[in-house]
């Protein structure tokens, strides 16, 4: 599943970049983050209580920073699992200067499996979007900038029966 999210934060991109690479900021911004511990320079481990409304699950996982190009871009390799499923994949982050502010483009390509994939597929895309939105809202707040989370999100999610090439 690919999830593309954009957000604008009223702060210079160096500022945004360092915030996104600051584990204290991440701990605060990652939705449902209960614990964030350092594994090494590039990798940290998280424990999350994640979900929406009553549908919540506990997840544990790691994020490893790759392809660091300050202050422009970097990628997180994500690997997490819980009792109701797992998430694996990458999230590529690009930060561009737009006048006084910065525009953050995040392109996540993740594989979701387990019960949440089998019985929750109709909601997964929307949940993912909500969580990324929450993340950027918190980020803006952490940086001290007014939030301006764009709604120009795109979900190119599940095999679409109308467009599955096997079926055409």
């Amino acid at each position, binding site marked *: 599943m690919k999830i593309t999210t954009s957000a604008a934060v009223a702060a210079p991109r160096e500022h945004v970049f360092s915030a996104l690479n600051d584990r204290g900021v991440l701990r605060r911004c990652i939705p449902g983050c209960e614990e964030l511990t350092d594994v090494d320079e590039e990798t940290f481990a998280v424990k999350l209580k994640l979900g929406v*409304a009553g549908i*919540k699950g506990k997840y544990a996982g790691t994020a490893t920073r790759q392809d660091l190009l300050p202050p422009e871009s970097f990628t997180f390799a994500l690997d997490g699992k819980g009792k109701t499923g797992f998430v694996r994949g990458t999230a590529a982050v690009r930060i561009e200067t737009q006048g006084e502010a910065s525009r953050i483009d995040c392109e996540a390509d993740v594989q979701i499996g387990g019960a*949440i994939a089998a*019985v*929750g597929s*109709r909601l997964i895309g929307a*949940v993912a979007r909500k969580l990324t939105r929450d993340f950027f809202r918190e980020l803006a707040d952490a940086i001290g900038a007014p939030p301006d989370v764009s709604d120009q999100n795109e979900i190119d999610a599940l095999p*679409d029966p109308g467009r599955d090439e096997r079926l055409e």
Partner: protein
Amino acid sequence: MYPAPFEYLRPATIDEAIALLVTHGEDAKILAGGHSLIPAMKLRLAQPRYIVDIGRIRGMSHIRETAGRIVVGAMATHDAIERSALLREKCPLLPETAGHIGDVQVRNKGTIGGSLAHADPAGDWPAAVLALDADIELAGPRGRRTVKADGFFVDLLTTATAPDEVLVEIRVPITSAKVAYEKTEQKASGFAIAGVAVVVEQGGVRVGVTGVAAKAYRAKAVERALAGQSAPTAEGIARAAALAAERVEALGDIHASPEYRLHLAEVNTARALRRAYGN
């Protein structure tokens, strides 16, 4: 199909229910009709530690007319709403919408309050209460408050209801018969791929859309396009309906792509408008 362990609590009054919610915080979950919560628990996607069953609280399933308004208790079942002679006469959108929900078994047990509080993005009730501009009454430790339907649906499965509040009642205006609910259902679940509720009133129209986006919404661009018209033309309706999904970020799944959902929002809006206006 075996839920995780939980403790079952059965308050006798709304105040008792609130007290339990205050005590147990986010570990508690209200059980109304149970038609979303129990399946999620059986799959262990939801594992609340406390279940607060409000099904035995008296006086929560009324359907009546009070002071020129229609009042529906949160625990009124979809079936009771569908069959209500009062609603058929004075607020026919509610019975019409109820008839689209699930199947007979679901309608017998499921409740309007439970459905609204769950705020499934494809539930049927959100479209209707938005189009009716309903007042939703919440009771909590700080007393009672009323939230307009328009501000009630916050996000996916998220409403303005605080964790320690109970949705107690829905109040809607008496309407004419110029209402309609048009729905395309997801074949497997019966949930809405695109459901559009329309209420025509003196000098205007309200349009609620469900199933298309992460939360139900008022199609205000459509409403503005038809404002002040009591008998819009077919072209006018078509032009207005084309705005039904304007700037909406649509959901996509194996049953319907975002593109198809947006298209159906327009089609069902046009159909509901034509029927409501008698056009």
